[in-house]
């Protein structure tokens, strides 16, 4: 009995510490935007709308959120489409050198999307005229995310039963019909996970748009965030905190939507 009590107390202490650890940094984001002249201190807000007014009047703030949506949705759509086709084919047909290829690409993608490839990607974009093009940026981001997406989706595909596909084939369904009507519904949680992962990834990406989009009208929120400084070079905390909140809300809403609709977790995916 005492053992049980001690364990309960230990459990709730652990939960309390974890909650504090994960919640503390977030407090500033929900108080500062509503505070008159915010500092780095977390204060009880006085619910002023003035900071939001300032963001609405900022020439590029709201437009940059639209740009972020274009980039994130465009990239996520391409990633889900191409990755699911590729992952399905790789899961069902043994192409030579499949596993080695997958691991090599995964390895490459985790490095080349970062700082290492800044110079070559910039030169490539200049050469083929993709500088200042949102479509070009979408293609580059898609190329970077595809290997990990294929890797994760292939595990989902591997774990779905093949018998449905076999019976559909017996009734004369074409491979594309089988993918559309049987495989996609089966791996929908996997597709949702990949879509959310890609959206969140692009939504937060600073380096690539910073490098490849010089037209301020086309820049996404991540880049605009770093222009919100005062004339003295200090961060303008009024604009920064408020814009940070507005910039965060879409990903939070997306997460809530997906977790309600599909359940936001790996359904036995990623196993080997």
């Amino acid at each position: 009995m005492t053992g049980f009590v001690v364990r309960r107390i230990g459990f709730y202490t652990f939960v309390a510490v974890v909650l504090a650890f994960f919640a503390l940094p977030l407090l500033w984001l929900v108080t500062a935007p509503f505070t008159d002249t915010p500092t780095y201190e977390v204060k009880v807000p006085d619910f002023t709308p003035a900071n939001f007014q300032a963001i609405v009047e900022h020439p590029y703030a709201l437009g940059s959120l639209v740009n972020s949506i274009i980039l994130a949705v465009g990239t996520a759509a391409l990633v889900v489409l191409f990755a699911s086709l590729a992952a399905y084919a790789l899961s069902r047909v043994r192409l030579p050198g499949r596993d080695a290829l997958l691991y090599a690409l995964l390895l490459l993608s985790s490095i080349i999307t970062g700082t290492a490839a800044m110079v070559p990607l910039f030169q490539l974009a200049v050469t083929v005229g993709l500088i200042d093009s949102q479509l070009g940026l979408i293609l580059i981001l898609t190329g970077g995310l595809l290997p990990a997406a294929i890797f994760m989706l292939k595990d989902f595909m591997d774990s779905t039963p093949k018998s449905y596909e076999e019976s559909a084939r017996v009734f004369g369904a074409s491979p594309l019909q089988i993918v559309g009507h049987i495989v996609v519904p089966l791996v929908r949680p996997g597709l949702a996970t990949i879509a959310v992962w890609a959206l969140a990834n692009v939504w937060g990406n600073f380096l690539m748009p910073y490098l490849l989009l010089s037209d301020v009208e086309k820049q996404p929120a991540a880049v605009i965030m770093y222009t919100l400084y005062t004339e003295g070079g200090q961060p303008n905390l009024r604009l920064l905190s408020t814009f940070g909140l507005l910039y965060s809300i879409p990903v939070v809403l997306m997460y809530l939507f997906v977790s309600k609709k599909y359940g936001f977790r790996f359904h036995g995916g990623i196993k080997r």
Partner: protein
Amino acid sequence: MSTDAAGLGRVRASAFVAPALILIAVFLVFPALWVVLLGVTNYRLTGLAAADPEFVGLDNFVSALTDGRFLDSTWLTVQFVLGSAVIGQAILGFTLAKVLHGRVKRFVEGLVILAWILPSAVVSFLWIALLDRDSGTLNTLLGIPGFPWLLDHPMLSIIVFNTWRGTAFSMMLYGAALGNVPPSHLESARLAGANGWQQLRDVIFPHIRGHILTNLLLISLWTFNDFTPFLLTAGGPDGKSEILAVHVYKVALQGGELGYGAAVSTVILLINLVVAVFYLRLLREQR
């Protein structure tokens, strides 16, 4: 041998894979090869070598491997990966997946995932606010106003930050993995008198070994190449938190030595390869 249940055939299968492979080849493989090529030149952002770069062989690699700053940076990266990914994210993620249940679970999970999905530009400001020496929440709570976390403990700060940032992935992956452990095996272990630790060691770990290794592989690589700590400490003070991703940025783009930076990138690529092969060998041993 996988079975071709949908009757795809090699040709159609290749057509399914082609669009992805083309994008990957153009925007990933090609830049990677270019990096390796740049690494053997003295290419610079400005000046004479910018117009007409010369072939310098392995000079860049030799100077990188004998440069104290590069070696320090590598050691800091090892600390960063071990501390924040392997110890921080994986252990905290597993513990959360294992011990949480019911309503508590949903609430805690929501917060952990929030830390993961918010944009880096936002979370870096949140942590700058949290750790601010004069009015930061942490110092207020601890009653030590004026303590400069980012100056006195830059590595500890970015390790704790990255644990906070990335635990969600491990938590979700282990959540899925633990669902695959047959309850009957746990039940028989319990009946045989196994305590909590023995159940973990003898029943749970063998079952989710593949998940653990995949998880460690992915988070190690992601953490190794993560640039976000730059937004917190900018590699400082005095290079004390200059992990390799930040180091490359500093020498290549701030210092303008593109050829040397590319050589460092190539070395990073090789280190990543070694890490990946290490995990993959461990993975293969289980079968």
